[in-house]
């Protein structure tokens, strides 16, 4: 699956992102089970709740590491522009949604959706940025 990626830097990045995603799912399940069956309190409850966020923070760090390691300037620029597009998209959506929540009583958007939405916007931007360079 990963052998088709020729650049070792990109391959490392893709593998790390998949591992992070897997750990995030695993830790989310663990945290949900812990809260369902053990009803933790105090510091332990905070640690259990934050557990699924750790692989996500790892994924963000790996993205930075990839940008620092990637030798191919074109690929790096593609990702940078997509990430900036994703940043703009998520900031626009969260701000708009927040005012709709406050003033027009739109349903609450949970903060955990911010990260996947960011990557969704980055993915959409990636398509546009790639098309620009064709």
């Amino acid at each position, binding site marked *: 699956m990963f052998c088709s990626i020729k650049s070792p830097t990109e391959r490392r990045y893709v593998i790390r992102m998949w591992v992070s995603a897997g750990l995030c799912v695993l830790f989310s399940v663990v945290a949900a089970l812990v809260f369902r069956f053990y009803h933790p309190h105090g510091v332990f*409850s905070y640690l259990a709740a934050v557990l699924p966020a750790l692989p996500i923070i790892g994924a963000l760090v790996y993205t930075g590491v990839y940008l620092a390691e990637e030798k191919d300037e074109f690929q790096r620029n593609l990702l940078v522009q997509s990430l900036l597009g994703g940043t703009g998209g998520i900031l626009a959506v969260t701000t708009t949604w927040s005012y709709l929540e406050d003033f027009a009583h739109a349903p609450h958007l949970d903060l955990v959706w911010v990260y996947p939405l960011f990557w969704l916007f980055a993915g959409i931007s990636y398509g546009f940025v790639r098309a620009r360079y064709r």
Partner: protein
Amino acid sequence: MNQPFKNLAMRRYLYRFLASIAFYTVFLVAAVWAFPRYHPTGFLAYVLAILPALAIVAVIVVVGLYLTEEKDEFQRTVLIQTMLCGMGATMAVCTGWGFLELFIGIPALKLYLIFPMFWAFVGFFTPMMQSRYR
């Protein structure tokens, strides 16, 4: 103090930014004033709620325009890198807070705070990034 005004892209950015913030202030005051007094509903409520957010979206567009117009590669690189760091830190805080909200029920973070939080992180990382290039 006068130095940024010598740069055409920076001057344009400042004017556009200030215009967007002026619109934001007017629209926000209008929304805060109108909702408790006239209790708008339906389409009008959505329009009034979205107006301040549109000014924030304009700020995001203004930053994008600045990045495309800025000729000084150093300035552009520093801003892009600080924005990427700011995005990473914002995503980390949102995800961590999101899981704490979900599992422990800590107070919800208002979504409109994500935008200023992002810029606070950008401001925090800017001197670090500039010192890297000294």
